[in-house]
C-alpha cells in the first residue's frame, strides 16, 4: 500500500504531490538546509543572550533585527554604504590592473620574476595598519587612503593567483602554439589568458572580499 501511494505521489500526472515537489516550491533542499543552519545559529544566539542578559555584551536577536531594520532604512547608512562600494570598486580596479599585469609578466618570464619578486614578496608581509599613517600623509584625509589600502590588499591575491595560473599552464600548449606559427600576442591572448583565467578569477574573489573586509 505504501508503495502504491508513493508511486501515485511521484506519478507525472500529480506534480503537486510529494515531498520533493513541496521542497522545490520553497527553493529546494539548498534553501531548506540554509534555513536550518540559520535557525540553529539564531537559536544558540538567543540562548546565550538569555544567559547574559546584557545588551552591551550580547544583545538578543530581535533587538539586533530592530537595529538592522533601522540601519537599512537610515539614509546616512545607505549613503555610506554606496560610498564604500565605490571605494571598493575603484581600489579593486587598480588592484586588478596591477596584479594581472605583474602576474602575467612574473608568471611568464623568470627574469621579471627574479627582478620583482623580492619587492613584492617583501611588501606583501608589511601589516596593512602600518600603511595607514603613511597613506594619510601621502593622500591626505579623504578617499585616497581608503582606495589605496583596498588596492594594496587586493593586489596580492590577484598577483599570486595569476602567477600560479600562468605557471601551471603546460609547456606543451606554448610549444604547440609556436609550432603552428602563433606570435607572442596570440600566445598571450589565446593561450595564457584563457588558461590562467580560472585562477585569476579566484584571486579576484579573494581580493574583493579582502578589500571589503579591510575597509569597514
Amino acid at each position, binding site marked *: 500500500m505504501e508503495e502504491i501511494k508513493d508511486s501515485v505521489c511521484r506519478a507525472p500526472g500529480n506534480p503537486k504531490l510529494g515531498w520533493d515537489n513541496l521542497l522545490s516550491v520553497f527553493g529546494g533542499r539548498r534553501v531548506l538546509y540554509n534555513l536550518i543552519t540559520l535557525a540553529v545559529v539564531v537559536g544558540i544566539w538567543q540562548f546565550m543572550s538569555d544567559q547574559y542578559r546584557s545588551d552591551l*555584551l550580547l544583545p538578543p536577536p530581535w533587538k*539586533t533585527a530592530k*537595529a538592522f531594520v533601522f540601519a537599512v532604512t537610515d539614509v546616512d547608512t545607505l549613503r555610506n554604504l554606496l560610498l564604500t562600494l565605490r571605494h571598493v570598486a575603484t581600489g579593486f580596479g587598480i588592484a586588478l590592473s596591477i596584479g594581472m599585469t605583474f602576474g602575467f609578466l612574473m608568471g611568464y618570464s623568470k627574469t621579471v620574476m627574479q627582478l620583482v619578486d623580492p619587492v613584492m614578496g617583501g611588501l606583501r608581509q608589511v601589516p596593512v595598519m602600518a600603511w595607514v599613517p603613511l597613506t594619510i600623509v601621502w593622500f591626505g584625509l579623504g578617499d585616497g587612503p581608503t582606495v589605496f589600502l583596498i588596492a594594496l590588499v587586493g593586489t596580492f591575491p590577484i598577483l599570486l593567483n595569476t602567477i600560479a595560473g600562468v605557471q601551471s599552464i603546460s609547456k606543451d600548449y606554448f610549444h604547440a602554439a609556436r609550432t603552428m606559427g602563433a606570435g607572442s600576442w596570440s600566445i598571450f591572448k589565446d593561450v595564457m589568458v584563457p588558461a590562467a583565467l580560472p585562477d585569476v578569477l579566484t584571486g579576484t574573489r579573494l581580493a574583493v572580499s579582502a578589500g571589503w573586509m579591510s575597509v569597514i
Partner: protein
Amino acid sequence: MVEAQTRMETPTLIALMIMAALVGYGIDQILLLINRSLTRWKYARE
C-alpha cells in the same frame, strides 16, 4: 560602525556587521556568477 562602537550600541554594531556580511556575500555571489559565465567550459559537466 565605529560610531556605534564608541556609543556602546552593541545591537547597532551587530546589525551593521550583519549588513556588511550580507553585502559582501552578495558581491561574492555576483563574482561567482561572472566567474561561471567566463569559464563555462569548466562547469560543463555539472
